[in-house]
């Protein structure tokens, strides 16, 4: 039985010290051999007769290797803070310098941000919020933040005993919605939920202990999607086509290689790799960032950072205007009264917002908090899954969501590069660099896709030769890298993530192009209902590449068998392996475009929300 079959969240991959030491050893060895390979590529392997081909590939390999270095730094150690005893009063989460906190019970606000989602979906989350456990009395308040201004939503909130908050406009979308709710509430801690978030009873007992440290600004918990299609077991799939013989064959194969499920997680939505490894392993650098839903925030931290950001923006604008005025008038300085009036009017015009009004408001706000060196705010990625939510289960919704992530992140990189920001520590900058850098991957992934096609069609090698020397340099690096990732990411599927990373290149390239042109990245809400149909238009580039790869493999092997010059055995094997890897990567997204849920195995899981509602 797989995890999806049981529909249970993953358990944290808790690697022991020896396991971590082995990962660190292998990772270091992989980087050493990788450096050796890259140096050799630039000094001894460029093909002087085809530099137009050889140099771009060497550049792409070097850029990918830099990404690997950042990735390794990111995953280096699982060292994480431990939660303290659960706070009971407001005073328990305040520092010594914060003054008396009082003995009043700790006040916690739970926000459910919604816009156009089914009110009945939100109802389930509200009901779960009422069932939260806590060993002491809390001043717990649940709020529905409805940007859709829907009477039906207001009615559901009233029926479930939740406070209903709305506003007259939709300025700032989700970030603006949260800001409006903060204006209307006063809890010490704020739990942020999306319309589909369903908190587990232990959500508060798992997370609030971290706030004993008065510097902890927020705790993010993993987002687990409980509606990921589990796919059809191989034995069932084969029995549908071959009858009993098929069922027997399927079971025999599964006995050897373990459970095989066709169509499992067709959109690569399982986020274990991201939360359990990438985010959790940023804890040591105090650099895990907020991902919105299923996170708990200290109100004081949000407000303080917002005030600092607000005053800084007013200062910046005012100073710029004062300089312009001084140039126009020839005066060395403005009268105090004039300056104060100008600043006051700027303050009225500048938005005050605890959450940056941006498509990636979570990431942006995290960067602002981390760079507040004066207060030294901390973030924590909690390892245990303590909530569940729904995933985009069609390629259109998936593309909207991923484009938003990519575009939002790249927009921050272009307009407010955190690497140039004062306040972030070196390790924090490295972690953010890893995030931003990963979104530049289409620049080198497209070269990796094109290179074997060019060779197989033309026989022109990007290397001087596919000699023994090439294999001696690349194989130790590739093997050590695989072994390192096998050990370091033990417990999650690396290949799946890697394939989607490659397959997403047109989408990320589109986002990069949009940001470079200065196009505004929109704030669409990721649909919660599945759009039916086939989405081949969304994967037209991937289809074109698959056709070219298959054709190039045919041409390459024919040339090799005919003994054409340049088609040596080493070259044909290296390029075939490379092409097959590319092919498998691209096929995942094409399969997703054509995917329809299996009525027996997938639909019951995907529609579980409807059953719960019923």
């Amino acid at each position: 039985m797989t995890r999806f079959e049981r529909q249970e969240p993953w358990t944290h991959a808790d690697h022991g010290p020896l396991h971590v030491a082995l990962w660190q050893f292998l990772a270091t060895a992989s980087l050493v051999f990788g450096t050796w390979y890259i140096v050799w590529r630039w000094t001894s392997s460029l093909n002087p007769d085809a530099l137009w081909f050889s140099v771009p590939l060497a550049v792409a390999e070097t850029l990918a290797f830099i990404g690997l270095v950042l990735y390794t730094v990111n995953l280096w150690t699982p060292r994480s803070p431990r939660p303290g005893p659960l706070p009971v009063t407001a005073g328990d989460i305040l520092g010594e310098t914060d003054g008396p906190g009082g003995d009043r019970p700790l006040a916690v606000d739970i926000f459910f941000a919604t816009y156009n989602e089914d009110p009945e979906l939100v109802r389930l989350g509200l009901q779960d919020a009422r069932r939260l456990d806590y060993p002491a009395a809390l001043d717990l308040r649940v709020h529905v933040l409805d940007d859709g201004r829907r009477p039906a939503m207001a009615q559901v909130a009233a029926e479930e005993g939740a406070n209903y908050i709305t506003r007259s406009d939709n300025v700032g979308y989700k970030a603006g919605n949260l800001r409006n709710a903060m204006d209307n509430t006063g809890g010490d801690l704020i739990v942020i939920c999306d319309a589909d978030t369903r908190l587990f009873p232990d959500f508060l007992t798992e997370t609030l202990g971290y706030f004993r440290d008065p510097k902890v600004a927020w705790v993010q918990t993993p987002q687990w999607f409980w509606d990921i299609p589990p796919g059809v077991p191989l034995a069932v799939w084969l029995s549908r086509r071959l009858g009993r013989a098929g069922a027997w064959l399927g079971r025999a194969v599964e006995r050897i290689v373990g459970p095989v499920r066709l169509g499992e997680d067709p959109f690569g939505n399982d986020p274990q790799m991201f939360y359990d490894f990438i985010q959790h392993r940023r804890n040591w650098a105090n650099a895990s960032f907020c991902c919105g839903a299923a996170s708990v925030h200290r109100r004081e931290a949000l407000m303080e950072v917002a005030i600092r950001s607000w005053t800084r923006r007013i200062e910046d604008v005012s100073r710029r205007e004062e300089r312009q005025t001084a140039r126009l008038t020839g005066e060395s300085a403005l009268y105090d009264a004039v300056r104060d009036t100008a600043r006051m009017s700027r303050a009225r015009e500048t938005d005050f917002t605890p959450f940056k009004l941006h498509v990636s408001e979570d990431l942006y706000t995290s960067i602002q908090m981390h760079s507040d060196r004066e207060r030294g705010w901390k973030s924590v990625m909690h390892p245990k899954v303590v909530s569940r939510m729904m995933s985009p289960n069609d390629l259109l919704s998936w593309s909207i969501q991923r484009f938003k992530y990519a575009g939002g992140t790249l927009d921050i990189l272009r307009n407010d590069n955190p690497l140039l920001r004062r306040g972030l520590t070196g390790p924090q900058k490295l972690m953010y660099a890893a995030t931003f850098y990963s979104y530049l991957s289409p620049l080198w992934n497209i070269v990796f896709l094109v290179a074997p096609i060019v060779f197989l069609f033309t026989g022109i090698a990007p290397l001087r030769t596919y000699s023994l020397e090439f294999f001696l340099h690349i194989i130790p690096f590739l093997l050590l890298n695989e072994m390192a990732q096998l050990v370091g990411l033990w417990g999650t599927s690396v290949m799946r993530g890697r394939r989607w990373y490659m397959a997403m290149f047109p989408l990320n390239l589109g986002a990069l192009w949009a940001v470079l042109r200065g196009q505004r990245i929109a704030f669409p809400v990721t649909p919660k209902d599945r759009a039916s149909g086939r989405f081949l238009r969304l994967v037209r580039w991937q289809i074109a590449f698959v056709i070219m790869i298959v054709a190039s493999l045919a041409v390459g092997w024919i040339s090799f068998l005919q003994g054409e010059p340049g088609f040596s055995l080493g070259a044909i094997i290296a390029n075939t392996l490379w092409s097959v890897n590319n092919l498998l990567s691209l096929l995942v997204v094409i399969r997703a475009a054509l995917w329809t849920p299996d009525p027996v195995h997938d639909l019951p899981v995907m529609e579980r929300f409807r059953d719960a509602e019923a």
Partner: protein
Amino acid sequence: MRKRSALHAARGQIAWILALIVSTAIVVRLEHVSFEAERSALVSNPFSGQESDPVALLARTREAASRGDTGLAQHATALALALARAPGDPVLAAEARAIRSEAEARLAGREDPVLAAAAALLGEVLGPD
């Protein structure tokens, strides 16, 4: 985290590692690569990547042309080594003298540095007549 589910999650990666190993093994096997002989390639191999170089092609042609005398040169070298280990063996000495004479006869007609070196080595072991 259960060991079995972790192993299932790693299947793709294990398959990829095996594919890398098998592919490398195929290349090594079919290209008759000897790692022992090619160790120096790691340090610096001036001929690496020069398989199609005109100089290398010329060298191969010459080697093929002189193949007729290679057997004699090898024979002479082997005898020289055997004699060095068993000096005074009359049978070996007689054979060595015969081979040296044949080599000298062939060398009179044309230039063959390999055969000349082998004959000289044999002469050194045999000593003056």
